[in-house]
Structures are given as C-alpha cells and as structure tokens.
C-alpha cells in the first residue's frame, strides 16, 4: 500500500503523458499549458507555504546549541555551532544547507548483549548530499535549453560533469550519482526495518517520481535520442512567453516533462518543502544571545502569579518565628 500506491501513481503519470501525446496528440497541453501551470503552482505554492509559516511568530529564542556558548573571554566560543550573532548564524546555516552539518553528526546505536555501542554512520549524510548536489548540477545543466547563448558557467558545469569523456553522447557523472543516490535512499527505506516502519506513502512517492524523471531523462539522452533542436525551440518559446507547439518530439520527452511538471505541482504540498523550511527552523536560524539581548515575544501577555505579599500573608507567623524580615507586621 505505502510502496505500491505511489509506484502505481508514478506509472500512471507516465502513462498519462504517453497517452496524452502519442494517442490524443495533446501537445499544446503537455508542452505548454501544463508546464506553465506546474510552474505557477510551484511558485505560488512555495510562497504560500513559506508565508503561512512566517505568519506564525517565533515567540522564544530556542536555538539548539551544539558547541561552547559565548561566556568568559578566555573560554573559546564555538561561533558556528553556538552562534551569538548574525554572522555565526549565517555560517551555521550555510554549513547546514550546503553540507548538511547536522546529518554529518549521525551515529548508529547498536545493542550488543548488555552493552550499547555507538558507531559512525555517514552513509545517510553521503547519500543525501550526493542526491541534492547532483540534482543541483542536473538542473543547472538544463539551463542550456533555456538560454541562448549558453552561459559560460553552464558550459563549465557540463564539461566538469563529463570530464571522464566516456560514451557518446558524453556520460554525465551526475546522472549516475543521481540515480545511485535515489536508489540508495529508496533501498534504505525498504531494507532498514526501522526506517521502513516510519515511512509513509508520501516518502516513497517523491523518490519514485524523481527516479522516473532521472530515468526518463537518461533514456532520452543516451538511448532514445530525441530532436534536441526541437526541445530547445520549445524551451526557448516557454522562456520568452511565446510558446510554439512543436512537432512530436517523442514520447520519452513528454513523459520526462510531465513527470517534472508533476514534481513541481506536488512540491509545495509535500515534505519536499523542507527545502524552504530549513531556512525557517528556529532551532538553527537563531543566535544564542537571549541572555545578552532581550528576545521579544509578540504575544507575551500578563499572567496570574502568586505574589510575595500573598506568600507573606500565608506564612507571616512562621516567618516571624524564624526571624525573617517582613514587609508587613500585621
């Protein structure tokens, strides 16, 4: 159910694209209308979700501190893991977002008889990092379809990515990495019993969708060649808001494109929003300086307390006997 349904869903999506373009010839729909719609949903949805989070205040300064605090001048503060100013926070966030600092901390706990043992466990960190960076490179490479002339940076990434000079067309390393990382992320979900136990359909669906996108893209590049000039014409038309319906580019292209559209439209309503959420996480993006500068809670309100006067009223006799100073002798 949790694995089958999302797998089926992705297959159905691919089938829809195939039927839509190969049988019904709805090329305008799949080549123009849906990409625009998906992009609009993605942008609007992403902003909507971030704004929704932002509408709730952060009432308290709750950074999770992972190093020495700012304290006495001769004690060395860990300015990144326990920042007390904006620069430290920026450093911490850069490490978190680009290198997955917290995940790098990962350990594995093993119970060996009557003892616990902690071991290093960097595979999840490595797999995740490999996936995200490969994905970024793949996206940047795709800019070649949307730009003319192709920026130097994009060309640089391409040559870096294909530096092995293997195959025709040249093999992109990130293609291999992307599929390998996704496969690893999928396999650990089904192989590690604890991870399988906590997984939801919503965890498998994006994996299948991304795998579908990667595989269809790889097939298109290395096996079922499509007319690259037509693809670029379509992409440039979309970019310049003067879309032209192309002749049939090929089923594999439309499947690839439609899966991407599905990912874009799905993104803001899913766990993939961790991409936006990480920047807003109050345990990471706040400085640990709440003893230095008063942190303000916008909804702080007066509460009922038990005052010293009430306390003294209750215990006055006992306090007097004990020789404690009193506010009222009464």
């Amino acid at each position, binding site marked *: 159910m949790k694995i089958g349904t999302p797998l089926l869903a992705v297959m159905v999506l691919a089938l829809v694209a195939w039927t839509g373009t190969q049988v019904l010839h709805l090329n305008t729909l799949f080549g123009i209308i849906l990409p625009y719609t998906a992009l609009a949903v993605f942008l609007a949805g992403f902003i909507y979700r971030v704004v929704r989070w932002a509408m709730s205040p952060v009432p308290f300064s709750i950074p999770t501190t992972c190093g020495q605090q700012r304290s006495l001048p001769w004690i060395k503060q860990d300015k990144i893991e326990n920042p007390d100013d904006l620069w430290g926070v920026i450093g911490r966030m850069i490490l978190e977002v680009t290198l997955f600092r917290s995940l790098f901390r990962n350990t594995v706990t093993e119970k060996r008889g009557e003892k616990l043992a902690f071991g290093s466990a960097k595979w999840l960190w490595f797999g995740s990092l490999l996936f995200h960076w490969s994905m970024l490179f793949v996206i940047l490479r795709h800019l070649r379809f949307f730009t003319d002339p192709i920026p130097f940076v994009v060309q640089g990434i391409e040559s870096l990515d294909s530096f092995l000079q293997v195959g025709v067309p040249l093999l992109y390393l990130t293609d291999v990495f992307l599929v390998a990382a996704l496969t690893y992320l999928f396999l650990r979900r089904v192989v590690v019993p604890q991870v399988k136990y906590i997984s939801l359909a919503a965890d498998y669906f994006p994996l299948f969708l991304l795998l579908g996108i990667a595989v269809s893209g790889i097939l298109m590049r290395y096996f079922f060649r499509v007319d690259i000039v037509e693809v670029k014409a379509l992409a440039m038309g979309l970019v310049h808001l003067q879309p032209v319906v192309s002749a049939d580019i090929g089923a594999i292209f439309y499947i690839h494109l439609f899966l991407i559209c599905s990912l874009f439209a799905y993104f803001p309503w899913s766990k993939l929003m961790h991409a936006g959420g990480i920047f807003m996480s109050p345990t990471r993006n706040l400085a640990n300086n709440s*003893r230095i500068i008063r942190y303000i809670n916008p909804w702080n309100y007066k509460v009922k307390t038990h005052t010293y006067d009430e306390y003294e009223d209750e215990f006055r006799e006992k306090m007097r006997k004990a020789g404690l100073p009193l506010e009222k002798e009464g």
Partner: protein
Amino acid sequence: MAKLPDKKDLLSYDYAVPSTEWMDTPAEFKPGTYCYGARGRNLEIVDFPNARDWSPNDEDWKLPENWKEIIIEGMAERMSKYRSFKLFMDVCVRCGACADKCHFYMGTGDPKNMPVLRAELLRSVYRRYFTPAGKMFGRLAGARDLTEDVIKEWWYYFYQCTECRRCSAFCPYGIDQAEITMMGRELLNLLGLNTDWISGPVANCYMKGNHVGLEPQAIMDNIEFMLDDIETVTGRRIEPSFNRKGAEILFVAPSGDLFAEPGIYTCMGYLMLFEQLGLDYTMSTFASEGGNFGFFTSNEMAKRLNAKIYAEAKRLGVKWILGGECGHMWRVVNQYMDTWNGPADFLEVPVSPITGTRFENARSTKMVHITEFTADLIYHNKLKLDPSRNDHLRVTFHDSCNTSRAMGLLEEPRYIISKVCNNFFEMPEETIREKTLCCGSGSGLNAGENMELRLRGGFPRANAVKYVQGTHGVNVLANICALDRASFPALMDYWVPGVKVMGVHELLGNALVMDNEIERTVDLRLEELPEKGVSSDV
C-alpha cells in the same frame, strides 16, 4: 516504589519492529513505565481545567464532553503562536536520523520512542484535520482520526520524553521533539491530563515558592543542618542571610539542593564558597526555586512560576542574580525568562565583586550561572584550592541536556573540575557535550512509580559511565543539575554500582581551602578523607 526489575529482563529487548504498523499497535500501559495521574486538588490550585482525580489505569479518563474540539482548537491556536510547531508538523522527511538518538528508544526498543514516531503521533492528527491531503486520503497520507485512544497514546508517550533535545542536534532540519512534546503536553493539560509528579510540584512551587514544598522555616532549618555539617568539616560557622533587602546578589538554587542528598552537599559547596569570598548575597525563601516544573506543563504555567525570581530580585533591591547548578532551570533562564518576565531593567549588568569581571553574556538577563562565576574566580586565582583532597575520586562529567543543547555551557564546569580534582576522565565522545545522553528522568519524569522507565531511559548514560568505570576506574559522576543528583544515585546503584553522584560545587567545596579552617579529615559527606598522598589506584 515497586521492586526493581531484573537486569536481564530489562535488557531482553531489541530494536526489531512490531509486525503491525504503528497506527495499528495500541499503546500498552506497562506498569513501571508511567506516572500517576494528576490530582484534582493540585490542578485547582493553579486554575487548570477539568480538575478531578483520575488514574491512567481507568478505562474512563473523565474527559470533558467537547474534548475533541478543545484539542483541535488548541492545536490551531498553538500553530498560530509557534512557528516551530507548524514547521515541525510539515517538514519532517522521516529520514530516521533521530530514531536511535533517543535514550528512551535506546533503552526500550519501542519504536514509538523514536523521536520521529513520537512526533508522528501528533502529526497524524494534524494531517487529518489541517491538511488537504490528510482530509482527502486519510491513512494513505499518514493521517488518522483523533480518538480517546490517541489521547491516551499521547499521554503515555509525551510523558516518556524528557525534552532533552538530543534528537534535534541530529535532525537535518533541527526538528526538536522537545518542542513537539511541549505542545503535546499543553494540549493534554487542556483536558486536565497531567501527571501527579509534575502537577504536585507545580502547585507547591506556585504556593510555597519551590517544588518540594518547603515552607520558609523549613528551608532555613535545612540550611541550618548543612551549616552544622560545614562546621564539623571546616570548623567555620557560616551565617547566610535570607530575604535580606539591599544585598548585592540574589542567589537562586534549584530546591532539590536544599532538600535531600546528594544535592545538599552541592549546596554546602555554594555556601562555603560564598562565605570564603565574603560575598554580599542573600537567598529567598519565596524565590526558592530555580527549576520550573511549569515548563513541563504549559508555557503559561512556566511563566507564572518563573515570575517570582525577577519579582523577588526587585523587592529585595539586589543588583543581579546568581543561579545554582540545574539543567532545565538554565534552559528557562537562558531562553525564556527575560522574554516572559523581563526586561530586568531594575537590575545591573552582573559584575563579579571579587574579580571585577563583567558578565557581558548575561547583560540583559542579569543572571549568571554559578559555574561561570566560579570558573572566573579560579581563572583569576581568587580561590585557594587543594585538589588532592579529591584524589580518592576518579571523576567523569555528565553534561546536562539543557545546559548543553539549550545554552552551551560546556567548558565552565570542566574548567572547575580540572582545578579541583586530579583525576578527570571524559566519557566517549558520542555521549558528552552536545551529544550528551539524558539521565532519563528529566522533564518531570523522576517519580518512583515509573522507575522501570527511568532505568531504561538512563541505561545509555549508565552504559557510558560503566565504560569509563572499566577503563579508568571512575567512581564519581559529576554533574551540574539537581535532577541528575536526584535521579542518578538510583540509576548508578542499579547499572553501575560503586559510582557516586556529585555536583561540581561539592567537589569544589571539598577542595576549597577556607581561611582559618581546621585541617580537613572528612569530606562534605562526613566521610573520612584518605591520608595525604594516597590516591586510589585502579
């Protein structure tokens, strides 16, 4: 307290997962793993809703008629007030990095003690009532209906989390289960569902100023006993002041240190230090609690209990506040107090009257941690110390969860230990500092009736202590937390016999050479000191 379970039985678990999915696996209330229900009387004292006597063993938990509405509205309200709550409901990808970081999971093998699943207990309800996918696809989207069984499950598992934040150090998005547990407990409290061990101290603290319910004269009597012992040990009679107006410093300790062994030895250390310094300080019988069990109840209750510290500092006209060794107290002081009850503009930026050090890091809160204060003294050579008096002790240090992960007070206590002891050994790196393992009794779980749970939750820490006992002959677990001092002795006796539990200022008190003192023959526990030059060999 029930008879302690056999070690073999306790350790017979593994990390295999049940054959049924977690939503189909009902929470089983195992004796020894949960606390008694809150008494109506204690809830009434602080005006909490649905005050009544009840027991978690009852089939009927006597919930108010519209309980479901209360919870759903309570969730909506909290999501509008806390970005953390809303965000943490949405962004988890269930990568599982947190799963084996929780001491309760490590010690029970119960998958619902994985932080991720503990959060899913609440997230599943969030999805069902607040997200389109959950409303449409239900279970396929990881959503489930809110039922009385769900409420019971929440109660069982949200009082099986010590809010230690270890999971949040490992989470790639910083999702903090402590934050989710706090929200879960707030929601449960809307239905009058607390534990006796938390609501009792809350009521005590509200009326009498401290969790243990010490009345003013009882506090003074307890200190008097300590002073007698100090006199026996040092030949010096100390006369501290209480509720004295015009003192320079208000000293606030966790009430555990005023109450029972081994906390009182730490308190004796404080008193000796202040006496030796000639510090112009006073203690308050009203603000006689630095800790805050309200924090384990609701934000509002925590604020209500915390208010008395600034109020008393103002009434007494002190310049600044010095705080004792306590874990969650310092989470509250560092991250909440000033926000709730500040600005403390009637106080001055703390300056050590001995060294002249201005505590810039406490510039706004005006409250200094005693290990910051003492480390500064030692650094400036203001204390005469004889660490050899602690030579029979082989010490390791347990970082409290809150001072590590909600403050970052790591080096200060270590510096003091390094100057008052000659034998100090760290536990393995994965179990200290920001990765420190919880005592398993924090956040109001240090009751007697849930001893099995505490033993299990404390097992990972005990396991690390046992490791250094084996490699270095460690016989003292030093700490800076009253809850540690209250809970570790039983845990150590069970898991690592032969290891004593001591506050850092107890070690300091033993090493401190006071003016005009007699030659020390006994330590603060009135136990014979070994002869000079004889250290314990492994």
